[in-house]
């Protein structure tokens, strides 16, 4: 197609509407123009991300600190491996797409069908991966991000002590019990055992049938929610948490072992950005914030107003850019499916060409192209 530019045409023929000066059909040209405008959108988003990063005073999160989980691998530290898998999936589905386009140029309907099905499957795997990654990002780690006494923020590393059970001490409505459980009266806490509603064997997690004993995911959820809200108190060895309805629970949990804190944002002379605090002082600083009883000293996971990984804009850009890209993948899969149905129905054969496959291919490759940049600027740099 490329060799025709060298032939001499008078400008009346070239631009008079008689031929395509670009040697391309109207549809393909318009797909290209659309992709340029879409590329400007993503370019603008990534540039805005760069702007925020360059003005940020603290320590921006690194990809391998945030993304080091792999499905079914639990807490095993596998930095960037899952993102690598997602990238590979997208590259492969781009390859199957271009193979479908090539088969289209040979009018080989069977091959086009085969490669388009492969492309759609790749698209679904990528979308599923993104759902998993978002879910992990939103739920966050066991320790979260901690706000120190002077307002500085630090991320935490260590070994988490699992929760055995939460035992309901003062249910909602038993105001006086709740008061006791809070311990604000300052009296001895020894008699609190007498108030315990549950008579389960605490600490062994065998109380599933007893609704007053919470274990597993439910216990985790209540515990983390209470910490975020500042509804956690410690008297001696006894830790109490309360949920939003005012139910008070005693916590049976193994000890956390905090190994290090990394200062992300410093708001006093005491800390500098990027400083790493280790050992006992890390443990003390974390526990002080954990049991302070103030809300938002520990931040878990991510949403649009805050996240445990870095500045609020980090989460916002993550959600917006990967979300917008994911939306493109989703619409790409849908358009691919529609064209696949047309191929199966013999529409392209009747037309005598498979240009529609080429056009949806352009869109699909564009999705891969955007991911190449998102991958570099979100996960690597």
């Amino acid at each position, binding site marked *: 197609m490329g060799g*025709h530019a060298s032939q001499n045409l008078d400008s009346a023929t070239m631009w008079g509407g008689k031929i395509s000066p670009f*040697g391309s059909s109207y549809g393909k040209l318009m797909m290209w123009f659309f992709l*340029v405008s879409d590329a400007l959108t993503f370019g603008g988003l990534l540039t805005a991300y*760069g702007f925020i990063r360059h003005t940020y005073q603290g320590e921006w999160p690194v990809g391998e600190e945030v993304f080091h989980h792999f499905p079914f691998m639990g807490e095993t530290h596998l930095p960037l491996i899952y993102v690598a898998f997602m990238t590979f999936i997208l590259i492969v589905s781009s390859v199957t797409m271009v193979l479908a386009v090539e088969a289209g140029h040979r009018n080989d309907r069977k091959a086009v069908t085969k490669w388009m099905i492969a492309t759609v499957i790749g698209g679904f795997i990528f979308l599923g991966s993104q759902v998993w990654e978002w879910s992990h990002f939103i739920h966050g780690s066991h320790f979260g991000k901690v706000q120190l006494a002077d307002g500085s923020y630090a991320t935490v590393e260590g070994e988490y002590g699992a929760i055995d059970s939460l035992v309901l001490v003062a249910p909602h409505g038993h105001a006086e019990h709740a008061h006791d459980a809070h311990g604000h009266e300052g009296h001895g806490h020894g008699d609190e055992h007498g108030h315990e509603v549950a008579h389960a064997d605490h600490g062994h997690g065998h109380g599933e049938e007893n609704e007053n004993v919470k274990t597993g995911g439910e216990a985790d959820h209540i515990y983390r929610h209470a910490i975020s809200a500042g509804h956690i108190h410690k008297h001696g060895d006894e830790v109490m948490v309360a949920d939003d309805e005012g139910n008070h629970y005693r916590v049976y949990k193994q000890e956390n072992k905090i190994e290090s804190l990394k200062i992300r944002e410093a708001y006093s002379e005491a800390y500098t950005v990027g400083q790493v605090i280790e050992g006992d002082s890390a443990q003390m600083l974390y526990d002080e914030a954990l049991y302070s009883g103030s809300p938002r000293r520990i931040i878990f996971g991510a949403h649009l107003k805050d996240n445990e990984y870095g500045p609020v804009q980090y989460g916002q850009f993550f959600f917006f850019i990967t979300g917008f890209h994911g939306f493109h993948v989703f619409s790409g899969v849908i358009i691919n499916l529609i064209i696949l149905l047309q191929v199966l129905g013999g529409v392209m054969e009747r037309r005598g060409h498979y240009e529609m496959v080429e056009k949806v291919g352009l869109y699909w490759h564009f999705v891969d192209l955007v991911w190449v940049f998102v991958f570099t600027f979100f996960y*690597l740099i």
Partner: protein
Amino acid sequence: MDARDDLIINDQYSLDAHHSEEAGKKIRRKIWIVTIILTLITAVEIGMGIQFKRHDDIWEVIKWSFIVMTLVKAGYIVLVFMHLGDEQKNLKWTILGPYLLFMAYLLFISLTEANYVYDMLVKYL
């Protein structure tokens, strides 16, 4: 003959541009070679991402090599997978020229401004 929008010259239409089984073999070979290149670059990127930390002295070099590798990958995707390299020169540069020019301008102006804002925040906050 109805007026068609894909006439290139004389009796040639772009939509009729089919290729033979033999030409297809060549194209597929090229596709697989590009696949291997893209996969290798990605693997190298991941390895470097795990190996080097932001506070390493060499980080500035690593960062720029990430950017260069990304542009190489993008080049392969656009020119080979999206066939822009096989299109007419005027179409290729109509797509690439304005975009690259504008993005270079936008990045330059935004990052320059961002660095200035950073300096001012350090100075006055």
